[in-house]
């Protein structure tokens, strides 16, 4: 299968007081449609920086990123914005939702941004929200929801416009374990059902039981990759014990 997302020797360095910080150091990876990947590693290992580059929000110092056959660095700022709008779904660690829009309006915002706001897509929104267990929360404002519910709204928004890839930064950071597992499981099943490429940054290693590949980072580099079912099960079970 051809990869929908390819990073080729991507490096990001920062210069602070004449010392060079290699936030991401020569990372290459490929993700195919229908593949859900976890990006794990200790704090400061470069996970969020990598995600920002994959999203076209940050320019790599070196290397190139290609999504759906297009090189991000060859696009203008405007094209990158349009690209994110059409081809990328996002969930963030915090401040995910527009506070003055209801659950339903937050999800439909993505459709409106893409001029896809039709009767059919509205029904799709309702179906998606029902699947995520939010069918009775459609007209609530974000402030009336729990952290887990807010993350699920963000997941619906990330998926509703049929993107090519979904990028999730710490989607479970503010949730307790039971709820976190539930959110990630739903997320994984939707990514698989829609045949998307998904990347989830997390440092909660227990969340990895639902993914197809684990990329472990350390000091900006890829330390290890687990991509067989046994390895992944062994990895996440080991962490379930704590």
């Amino acid at each position, binding site marked *: 299968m051809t990869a929908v997302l390819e990073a080729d020797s991507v490096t990001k360095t920062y210069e602070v007081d004449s010392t060079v910080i290699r936030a991401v150091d020569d990372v290459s990876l490929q993700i195919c449609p229908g593949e859900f990947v976890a990006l794990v590693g200790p704090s400061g290992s470069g996970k969020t920086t990598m995600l920002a580059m994959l999203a076209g929000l*940050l320019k790599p110092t070196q290397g190139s990123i290609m999504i759906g056959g297009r090189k991000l660095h060859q696009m203008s700022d405007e*094209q990158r914005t349009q690209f*994110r709008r*059409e081809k990328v779904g996002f969930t963030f660690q915090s401040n995910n939702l527009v506070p003055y829009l209801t659950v339903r309006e937050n999800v439909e915002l*993505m459709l409106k*941004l893409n001029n896809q706001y039709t009767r059919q897509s509205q029904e799709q929104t309702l179906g998606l929200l029902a699947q995520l267990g939010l069918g009775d929360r459609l007209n609530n*404002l974000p402030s009336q929801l729990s952290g887990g519910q807010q993350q699920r709204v963000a997941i619906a928004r990330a998926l509703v416009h049929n993107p090519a890839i979904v990028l999730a930064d710490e989607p479970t950071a503010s949730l307790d374990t039971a709820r976190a597992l539930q959110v990630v499981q739903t997320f994984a099943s939707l990514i698989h059902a829609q045949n998307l490429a998904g990347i989830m940054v997390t440092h909660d290693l227990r969340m990895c039981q639902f993914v197809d590949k684990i990329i472990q980072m350390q000091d900006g580099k890829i330390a290890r990759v687990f991509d067989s079912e046994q390895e992944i099960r062994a990895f996440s079970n080991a962490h379930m014990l704590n």
Partner: protein
Amino acid sequence: MYVDTARRAAPRTSNLNLQIKPLISPLPPYLAFKEIWRNKGRFLLVSLVIALITTLVLFVDGLAEGLGAGNIEYLQKLNADLVLFQENVDLSVSASQVGWSNLNDIGRIQGVKDVGLIGFSNASIVLGDGQEPLDVSLIGIGAGKPGEPEAFAGRSLKGNRVKEAIIDRNVFLRTGLSVGDQFTIKTIQGIDEEFYTLEIVGISDGRQYFIRPSIFVPYLAWDEIKPQAFVEDTDRSELILNVAAVQLENPGNLDAMARRIEAQLGSVEAVDLKTAYQATPGYSAQQSTLNTVRIFTLLIGLLVIGGFFQIQTLQKVAQIGMLKAIGASTSTIAIAFVVQIVYITLLGVVIGSAGTLALSLSFPVTVPIRFTTESVILAISSLLIIGPMGGLVSLIYLLRIEPLTALGLRP
């Protein structure tokens, strides 16, 4: 392999751009009004502040107009092109003296169409039923000459020897006197109170002078009625008034005619109406004071609106970063912001103007506040401009928020 893919990808890049977008996207107003609707209290508060500022600006404007009119309305509306003062009196109406003998000399100057002398003084109208007497400007004019106001009710003065008067609208409103009525004027001559009876033959529009309503009487009656510090026992050879109002055959030729009149007559100063009324004591100082108040009020409005939107923007940094990250274009965010600020300002100005109108309807005629279409339009448009101006800093700030902040990173 990469090169190959890139080449194949190239056309797709341009396809993305070809997608037809509606010319005016409904999204920015949608976001703008949703936010206002879900934060009604906060936005209404700012609108009310703008409404109060609007009221203040309109009242200061109205006061400037009203007080200004009270001071100089008669001169402003004078049916003349030039006003002649005595030389070296700093265009002071009360210090200036222009004698009857000048009248014919002025009339004979080439290019002068007509001329009338005007005398200014004051008096009180005695009102019955224990009412306070009304202080008025007593203005002496030549019947049918420049200086006589047009009577919109009744008629003009019959001649220079009649015991007739034209009253201005303000006298009419404040006394209830009307055409055909006889009324009594009281003045002080020396140490005695003197009373004169006149008949009202006409009513003119508002012609206040020296912050008093006005009555117009023929020269001779004026000379007889006007208060004097002492009673003169010798007959003067000549009737002395204060200024002369000159109509020109060609009003476009103002400056040259003023110079000609000054040259031919000697010892007079000829100026246009504007110069004449701006020289009225207190007028310029009063107007510039009120102007300063107005400018400061607008400045306060600018800062209030600017401050509110800046605080709001600072609170929204994460949210705006998120919107940009998920693909909202900078223009969507900018337009939503501008829609919001224009709407809030407009709402405030409408509330403020309506409130001002309602308030002013309840004022008695003695309140020197007057709204002219011109000044109201000017005030409202300057208020509508300060809203967006106040938001300019916030707008630039909004445009600069990096979508990267959504991930908690800095560039």
